């Protein structure tokens, strides 16, 4: 299969002399669901801005499907939909007009534009608001409006820059479902987020950038596979006094009815339960202590990719 996006040695120095990208290379396969992660100021939006013509690049190559943006940006743009990080519609324009105009800029007739607007506004639960001015929408509705707008010209690559920022839990879950369906229908999706649960839930491949450099580019599976230990929190039915010594698991007491345990990923949890019941300890419930990816992510940012200290 072809690449939906190929970025080769991309650099960006802003007008004030700040170098936001220091040579990023990246490939996203067609059909992929791809996470672009990194801390605030890493260069995610800058990268996306260059791909979508909002930011000029300083050097490097970008290809969208078969189109080099230096030679054929107009064709490339037709295949590309962007949901930007900041709201960027005219707040006085009615919702439906925003979509029809965006379609028009892509050369889509007004009549077809209205049909598409209806389809996507309904899909995103905004049909009731079609006559409202954009400023009358809530924050979460504005995000959904930007998703609908990015889809009116039916792109094959959809890039979403923090689409679920400021969105309530219910809407977030319905947005996830919606994005999964788009992806299943063949649309390649690239997403940035600071919610690692979201990345873990949705994305198959992942890149992490930090300070304008790519520090990781791998599959979600491989990345998670690197975690040897997992920490679980156990809630107990009855208070315990002294802790039994269990080898090789390391058990810690948090309070009378709460224990924490580190388990090697190769070991089964059953063994732990057996040992505990032998000591008369009954486990009521068990949960992951923190998001596993979050731990790994912090570790990588502190230490560089393979545990080396960064200068």
């Amino acid at each position, binding site marked *: 299969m072809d690449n939906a996006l190929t970025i080769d040695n991309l650099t960006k120095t802003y007008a004030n002399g700040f170098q936001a990208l220091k040579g990023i290379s990246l490939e996203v396969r067609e059909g992929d669901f791809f996470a672009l992660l990194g801390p605030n100021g890493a260069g995610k939006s800058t990268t996306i801005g260059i791909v979508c013509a909002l930011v000029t690049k300083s050097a490097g190559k970008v290809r969208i499907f078969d189109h080099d943006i230096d030679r054929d940006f107009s064709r490339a743009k037709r295949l590309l939909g962007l949901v930007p990080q900041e709201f960027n519609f005219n707040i*006085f324009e009615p919702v439906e007009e925003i979509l029809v105009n965006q379609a028009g800029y892509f050369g889509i007739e007004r009549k077809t534009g209205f049909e598409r607007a209806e389809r996507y506004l309904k899909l995103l639960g905004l049909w009731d608001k079609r006559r409202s001015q954009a400023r009358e929408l809530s924050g979460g509705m504005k995000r959904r409006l930007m998703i609908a707008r990015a889809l009116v010209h039916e792109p094959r690559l959809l890039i979403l820059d923090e689409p679920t920022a400021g969105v309530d839990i219910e809407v977030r879950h319905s947005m996830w479902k919606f994005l999964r369906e788009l992806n299943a229908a063949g649309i390649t999706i690239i997403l940035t987020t600071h919610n690692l649960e979201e990345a873990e839930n949705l994305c198959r491949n992942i890149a992490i950038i930090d300070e304008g450099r790519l520090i990781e580019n791998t599959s979600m599976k491989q990345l998670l596979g690197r975690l040897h230990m997992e920490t679980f929190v156990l809630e107990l039915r009855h208070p315990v006094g002294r802790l039994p010594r269990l080898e090789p698991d390391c058990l810690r007491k948090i309070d009378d009815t709460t224990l924490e345990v580190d388990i090697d990923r190769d070991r089964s949890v059953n063994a732990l339960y057996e040992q505990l019941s032998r000591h008369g300890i009954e486990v009521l419930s068990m949960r992951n202590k923190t998001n596993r990816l979050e731990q790994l992510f912090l570790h990588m940012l502190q230490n560089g990719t393979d545990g080396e200290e960064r200068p």
Partner: protein
Amino acid sequence: MNLHDQLIAYKTIVIKEVLRFGRIWVQTIVPPVITVSLYFVIFGNLIGSRIGEMDGFSYMDYIVPGLIMMAVITNSYANVVSSFYGCKFHHNIEELLVSPIPSYLIVLGFMTGGVARGLAVGAAVTAVSMFFTELQFHNPVVIITIVLLTSMLFSLAGLLNAVFARSFDDISIVPTFVLTPLTYLGGVFYTIHLLPEFWQNVSRLNPILYMVNAFRYGFLGVSDIGIFWSYAIIIGFTAALYGIAVYVLHIGLGIRK
């Protein structure tokens, strides 16, 4: 983009622009009509009757074309400068940047929006002027071509102002300190033959003089300036501004980071 798609994209910008100033017509169409009506009442009727004739016409008749032109110039300029700067300010210019629209179509689209408002206000002012005087139409072709070209020219100028502007102050500097003085000194209210020779020559450096006089020629058949020169200068300026506007948008000045 093929021609068919380009046409749709162009139409989209124009419709959006016309809807924009149409939605806020109380701010965009009504004020200039009131202002010019006041000019008609005060300068035309009250003071004009004491001034007597100018170039062989009643003062009212003499100033009507210039006042229409003044309204067209200000409104064409104002429409594009505020609309385009608004697009930058609210970042919805990005809707255009992510689309395949070529720069020249963006320029043409916004320019057409400015021309639409300029002509709408011009028509309204012309209609009002008919309450005060009986308009003659000496040469309708000149009237229409000159008003169109002038409106295009100042729409493009407004666009360039918006491209370079970094704050809302920047979009009022040019109208206040350049446009208004040049218009008032551009022969709207007097024939430059009233001026000493030196100031006549200085006036000839003012492009608006050429537009006002050519426009007046279309109505009354009199002009301080040869009509040919007027066309040459207006077309020259329009073409130059168009070229510059397309170029700056193409390189992304003021709109791409």
